């Protein structure tokens, strides 16, 4: 099934800027093996297919083309998961500073 995303939708596109053979000579091997990529967000200029060619108009009014990667991209970075070491640091420090079990 093909998903068509409507013109005007806020999306993220992906573009391969350099393939692995075109990369800077001084790079370490692991980086040289992979292409150099770029991601841009903007409003779709035309109805476009998911993962297909697409052009966006960015916030500064530039037109950029690439493949349609994400629709209505948003953020989900967070405060991570439980890290037991942090609780121990807090307890240790309070004890070192204030002594005893007052705040322990």
């Amino acid at each position, binding site marked *: 099934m093909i998903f068509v995303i409507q013109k005007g939708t806020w999306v993220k596109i992906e573009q391969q*800027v350099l393939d692995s053979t075109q990369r800077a000579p*001084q790079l370490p091997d692991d980086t040289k093996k992979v292409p*150099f990529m770029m*991601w841009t967000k903007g409003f779709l200029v035309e109805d476009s297919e998911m993962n297909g060619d697409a052009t966006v108009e960015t916030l500064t009014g530039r037109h950029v083309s690439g493949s349609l990667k994400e629709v209505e991209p948003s953020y989900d970075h*967070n*405060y991570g998961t439980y890290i037991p070491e942090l609780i*121990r640091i*807090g307890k240790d420090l309070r004890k070192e500073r204030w002594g005893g079990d007052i705040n322990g």
Partner: protein
Amino acid sequence: MAKDFSYEAVMSRRPEIMKASVGIDYSQFEQDGIGFDYERMMKETGYTLAEMQEIQGKTGVGNTPLFEMHNMTALARKYAPKGKGARIFIKDEAGNPSGSFKARRAANAVYHAKKLGYKGVIAATSGNYGAAVASQAAMHGLKCIIVQECYDSHYVGQPEIIEKARKCEAYGAEVVQTSVGPELFYIFLKLLEETGYFNASLYTPFGIAGVETLGYEIAMQFREREGKDPDVVVCTNAGGGNLTGTARGLIKAGAVETQVVAASVDLTGLHMASDTDFNRKSFTTGHTGFGMPFATNPDRSDVPRSAARSLRYMDRYVLVNQGEVFYMTEALAQLEGLERGPAGNTALAAAFALAQEMDENQIILVQETEYTGAGKHIQAQLTFALENGIEIFFGNPDDEVKGKNIILPENPSMMKARDVDMNKLKASYIKNIAAKAEDKVLLEDDITFLVQETKSTDDFVRDEVKKLGYQVRQN
């Protein structure tokens, strides 16, 4: 004919693009030989201290509070020899509009762009500077593009950098992201050419001069509060602008006795352009991956001559490990009730150790903090480290293997500031810069330049260049 925007074509137009986008003809400051007139460049292209204070004041930048870290000091004294343990202070730069001292740099750069009539500004940065430029651009009604290196080849992003993208967008900026690699510079140049926007580089004279207000404020605040200048100021060091601007500001205030110490997180062994190492770093700034190359070869940035020249001002350079900075970040929250971003606490980790070498009546200042938030937080960063196979445990921080583990000090007494050999650093600078001389011949003026650049002596420089096989000739 349409302009050629291929990699080679754009890179070959670099000098013209640079010139058009910063509005400075750097060639006027070049001297015969390898040097240039740094002070004249700062004077003729920068702003006076009073002008900068006004520019920054109008956008709410600067005049951040100074806090004494009573509990940190008490703790440090527990481990110090009797009579030792300087008072630790912190300048809460997170209070700036965009959440870090970078607002000072951006305020001047964006003001300058607006004055020159540019319609927008562009900066290549994955750090706090992007947020700072975006915030200033919002205030001045200029368009803004931030280019950031963000994802590895598996499209896994550094949480701290993703948070920075969010913050830039919150201020209305366009964010262009790339995978790992210095070719980001090509994108940056292409954008400058395509848009005709101003290059709000971190390294222009106005950007660096923008940090002078920080050094100046430090001296004024201490004189008012303590009746004296701080004995030591510790600066988290990467590209060197933080230290350079702060030191220049201190000098402008007459605080010439204050010792200026650089502190970086030691990431030795991780390659900065490596796709696999990219997400094994738990710090994206304030580390040796920038600190060392920029100190020993400052003109590697996005302008022909960097105004950030840390070796001119650095009295000492110390390294701390990742686990120690995370530990101190937690200590700042748990003992001082201040939750701040980890990278900015690099200098704090160093200060905790350095304070123990100093007398009790002395003062050591950590000259900045940065904001914290989702992604850019000790817990988020440690979680990300675990996801990338990095082990986290308590032990001796000296045993930390970068990219493999993060060792939290078993006890605060294990915190250390490890000295970088300043003479080696200076020698390395001299080697890099002298290499620009033709036919292994240096001029007398070059020697003077190298002495100033390394804050060293005539004898030291002559000795080094002799070892390297250079001849010295009259101009």
